[in-house]
């Protein structure tokens, strides 16, 4: 059936990467079906690739944190304030979603050059520079995940707590936060995944020699690649799977099945 065909199409590349990662040897090229089954590739992953993975994780975590720090108050403000023009504000926050990755990367690169020329601080090629750009790109995802949760939230619960004597902070901490936590959690992990998987922005903003993992894969594909990249990619796939399982366990996957 068409269902099977589409799913095979969807997963074939990923499955191939995993399958061929176990066929590590002297050959410079990759063949399938594999000739042998060994974990050697996993033991031989060169340092620049593992550094790339660490960098990606680091940038991703910082992005998730930053995007949440901006996105959560923004969501609270949007849902709970009486400000006029809410849809305009919502649209403003969602603008980064409209900007293609290359444009985002280019824009930040040039902005950093200009700021650098003016102030002496060149952010292109720095960790913070990449993180800032990723935060800008990922915040709408956090807002998109938290706003619906807040909208479903009943303020009467908070009012009840306060009637019973809880202070505003206690109410927030013990009533509000636990109830919106799934949305917050899903949103920040979504932001992490967006940052982790990004190619175009990182390609513009990475320092030559230290790239994030997807950019490493990109460069590897542009030249003859070291087949250990398959092993590294398999690890990353497993890692992504685990992140998704965590989201599923704590918040459910609703955050992804949402109309834009």
């Amino acid at each position: 059936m068409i269902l099977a065909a589409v799913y095979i199409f969807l997963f074939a590349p990923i499955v191939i990467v995993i399958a061929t990662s176990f066929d590590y040897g002297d050959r410079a090229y990759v063949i399938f079906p594999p000739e042998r089954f060994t974990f050697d590739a996993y033991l031989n992953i060169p340092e620049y690739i593992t550094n790339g993975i660490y960098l990606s994780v680091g940038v991703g975590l910082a992005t998730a944190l930053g995007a949440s720090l901006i996105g959560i108050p923004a969501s609270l403000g949007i849902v709970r304030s009486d400000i006029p023009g809410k849809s305009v504000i919502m649209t403003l926050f969602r603008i980064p979603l409209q900007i293609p990755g290359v444009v985002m990367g280019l824009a930040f690169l040039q902005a950093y050059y200009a700021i650098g020329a003016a102030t002496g601080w060149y952010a292109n090629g720095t960790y913070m520079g990449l993180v800032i750009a990723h935060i800008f790109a990922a915040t709408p995802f956090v807002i998109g995940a938290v706003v619906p949760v807040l909208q479903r939230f009943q303020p009467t619960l908070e009012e009840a707590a306060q009637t019973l004597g809880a202070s505003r902070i206690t109410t927030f901490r013990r009533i509000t936060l636990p109830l919106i936590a799934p949305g917050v959690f899903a949103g920040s992990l979504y932001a992490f995944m967006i940052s982790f998987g990004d190619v175009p922005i990182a390609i513009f903003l990475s320092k030559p020699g230290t790239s994030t993992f997807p950019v490493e894969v990109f460069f590897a594909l542009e030249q003859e690649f070291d087949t250990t990249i398959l092993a590294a990619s398999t690890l990353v796939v497993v890692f992504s799977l685990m992140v998704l399982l965590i989201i599923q366990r704590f918040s459910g996957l609703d955050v992804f099945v949402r109309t834009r």
Partner: protein
Amino acid sequence: MSGIKARWELILFPPLVLTMVLLVASQFIFIRGSFHKDLGYGDLSTTYELVNYLRAFSDPYYLNVLLLSINVSATATVLTMICAVPVAYIIARMTSRWAMLLLALVVVAQFVTIAIKVLGLIVLFSPDGIVNRLFLALGLIDETFTILGTFPGVITGLMYYSLGFAVLLIYSVILTIPRSLEEAAQIHGAGRFNVYRRIILPLAAPGTVVCSLMVFNISIGGFASTALIGAGKILTLPVIVQRSVVVNYNYGMGAALAVILLVSVILINLFSVAIIQRFRRGKGMTI
């Protein structure tokens, strides 16, 4: 309780201001840069001129890139939707718990970074890869083929960007169509085909159109897969934006091309919002 609302407005301001600062700071400088002429070696002239834009729309090289981008993205969009809609419909109408698993699988596939998917595609279709060996063995081809630098290859690569999103989006659209409508139609004697044509299609149309526009936007902005599979032979807008800047140091031209890409995407988004508005007003339905 009236003072509390003001507190929420206060909380809104810092993120809003920060986002606006980031937006203006990042986008303004590069947009301004697009109005400067490249003097070579990364220098820009100091006067404002439209030369980059004029070149983009008159030089056959750039026109070709624009047309090619639209062509490739449109084809990828059509193919993606053809795959996504039936799958989404099947999952939406499933009664078993397999539906959850299938959706989860879609999310998993979507979340693996495009770089790994392209790696897999290149390995899959490499001269010693499984597809070539299979086709040779079956006698379907006489010599090995490659997807690098070919249109089908690039189009296939683009599909991986948005197939997952499309399935999820159409899934939520179909969910809004009550099953009872289909059942009622069938009770009244409509065959399967007519059910699709006269019940599902009209109701799912706006959501599908909006989804297609979104897929088109994602495809036209797709960089990684086109750059890798295109292998320097098939150049789309995002690819030459990156090349102009990183390879040729033509910051002005690169910025102009990026602005063209950005404006196209925004226009398409506005168009799709207009479609939603018009449909909402016309039929009073929610999407």
